[in-house]
């Protein structure tokens, strides 16, 4: 089976909210999260999606 979408990284302020199995980046503030997510998006060629609980996931489509 070909996996079409994969979570490459997670940016969050609370480890408890992060999914198991992805690379987790813990940040202290919203601004830091925005910055880290933007960096990761550029590096990983993925899209930074924001979940309704405020967690960013970087997804490869």
């Amino acid at each position, binding site marked *: 089976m070909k996996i079409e979408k994969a979570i490459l990284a997670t940016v969050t302020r609370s480890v408890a909210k992060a999914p198991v199995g992805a690379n987790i980046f813990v940040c202290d503030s919203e601004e830091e999260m*925005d910055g880290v*997510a*933007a960096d990761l*998006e*550029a590096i990983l*060629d*993925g*899209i*930074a*999606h*924001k*979940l*309704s609980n405020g967690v*960013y996931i970087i997804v490869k*489509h």
Partner: protein
Amino acid sequence: MNEYTISILFGVIAGTLARIYMFRTDYRQYPTYPHGMIIHLALGFIAASLGSLVVPSIMEQEFTAVTFLTLAASQFREVRNMERKTLTEMDSLELVPRGASYIEGIAVTFEGRNYLVIFISFVTSFAYLAINLWAGLVAALLAFLVARKYMTGSKLGKIAIIEQKEVTFDGAGLYVDNIYIMNIGIPARQQEILQHGLGFTISPKNFDARMTIGNLGQRQAILHDLAISLGVYRDSGTPALVPLIKRDLDDGRIGVFILPQNKNVDLAMKVISQVPTLENAIRMPTETKEKGSDES
């Protein structure tokens, strides 16, 4: 020189001229100039020769000679394969790909036009041999008009209404009108999209059109044509800036989201209405209904 030489030459010239006329190198830049063009001119010439040979061979009672038309068929099917293969390989290098359906449409067109050339040459040489030179000219003109009618397909503007709609964000969700497009997380990215993005909705005029514009290949063709005409604000490795089309499940409208380099709304609307409706995407669900009710 024998009695058929002039008729064959006449058919070949008519067919080849018709093929030249059928070349429309426009915004698609296809066939590529000059070598792609030469290949197809040569093939058009071969097709014209085959078409104009049919009548003389029948008149000479060489009926088996007509079997060379089957050779022509396999030859031109090969043309379709060649076009499909080249375009598919090139497609992965496009910023906004054409999509398989659009490629198939182009490949089929190339094959079909060679058959049109055979038809024109056949009719022309037939009229020349059966009547005279002037009849041949008239026949060439008529065949040419018939070919022109079958050469161009329908356009999207005929089956759907195109409107410009605002691009908005609801939280991280990107919307065109009320159609959800995708989730964009980073605020800076959202600003970029609001600044550069254009949104359109395409509403089908009837139920058949609803199926046609819902086709994924048709949607990709719209995006490709838009990207070619207006440019596209993206690079490789920026999937967040990919133009997208999503569908409203309730009424079959589709929402087009694109980040053009040239933010010209009028031009964009014109381009969308000129997008060809792909042969492979056309569906006629209403035809089924009518037949079903007749039988029951």
